[in-house]
């Protein structure tokens, strides 16, 4: 199986703070990978390097065989950890705007997802609950015909039902369009059954990676592996 991402000896520090430390890891193509690790492990920095928002000080990274470049970002849907959208937009305005600025945006699919997620087209972004906002941001990423989807903590601080709706959309998305999806999350128990593959980071380095079913066979559930690694 080929890799969507090849990361070799990648290092990045912010002043004295080391975010990525000689990181060497790859992500399989066409699979859904859980990117796991405690706060400060380097997960968000890694995702930012992939879309070219952060320049590493050393090492290199290939995204589908190419170094990161803004031109290739048309093939990547990225949800940052602190996503924001125009507060005055209604959901309808937001998705119409998304259609004009986001390459590969699939309007019918977005409308369908809005229905599944039980969102109202006329609601203003400023009036949405945290869970509804998170759902909207996930829709803006998943309703795109792109090769790579990067979701940085899409489940943080949102209620159970919104989380379940997002998981439902992810399952639909996996069936409807083959994509490489990378999700960083702390909600391991709720999400581990979705992953094909997991990558554990700590202090900017790779701690463990592997196929989820093989890891379950060998060591048990992903949540307990996480506890064992970081406790």
């Amino acid at each position: 199986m080929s890799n969507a991402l090849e990361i070799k000896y990648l290092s990045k520090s912010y002043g004295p703070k080391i975010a990525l430390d000689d990181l060497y890891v790859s992500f399989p193509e066409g699979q859904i990978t859980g990117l796991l690790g405690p706060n400060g492990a380097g997960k968000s920095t890694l995702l930012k390097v992939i879309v070219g928002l952060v320049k590493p000080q050393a090492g290199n990274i290939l995204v589908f065989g190419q170094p990161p470049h803004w031109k290739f970002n048309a093939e990547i849907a990225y949800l940052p950890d602190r996503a924001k959208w125009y507060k005055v937009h209604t959901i309808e305005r937001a998705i119409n705007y998304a259609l004009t600025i986001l390459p590969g945006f699939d309007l019918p699919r977005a409308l369908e997802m809005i229905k599944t997620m039980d969102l109202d087209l006329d609601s203003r972004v400023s009036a949405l609950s945290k869970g509804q906002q998170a759902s909207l941001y996930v829709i803006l990423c998943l309703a795109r015909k792109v090769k790579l989807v990067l979701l940085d903590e899409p489940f943080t601080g949102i209620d159970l039902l919104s989380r379940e709706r997002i998981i439902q959309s992810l399952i639909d998305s996996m069936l409807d369009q083959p994509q490489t999806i990378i999700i960083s999350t702390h909600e391991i128990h709720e999400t581990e059954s979705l992953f094909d593959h997991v990558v554990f980071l700590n202090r900017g380095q790779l701690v463990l990676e592997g196929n989820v079913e093989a890891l379950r066979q060998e060591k048990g559930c992903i949540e307990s592996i996480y506890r064992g690694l970081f406790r």
Partner: protein
Amino acid sequence: MENIQVGDFNFQMDLSKPLYEQVLQQIRHAIARSDVPLGTKLPSVRELAQQLKINPNTVMRAYQELDRDHLTETRRGQGTFITSDLDTVKQVKMALASEAVLVFVSSMKKLGIDRPTAESLLKEVAWHE
């Protein structure tokens, strides 16, 4: 563990074991125990993945294995159906029974019980309750 009913099937998923094997085993057992009538349609991959909240690839892998064992038959555009062939079901039933016997023998051995004692215990046990 939570019991999840999907169509005619019941599932209990344990995250500490491979999920693909659990889906496969639980459908196998349901067929062998005649919990579901022969010829029944299996839930679609989407429906089962959604209800169990698992990766659709996991469901597809289990379904492929059932097809390979001829326990199910996938008809193009219609879905996957449990076999109507009684002999196939009987074979699976015997295979699952042999597995259960091996588990039994292994736990007897661990207890230090020898074969004659285990056999006499089997003879004494009440089958009908």
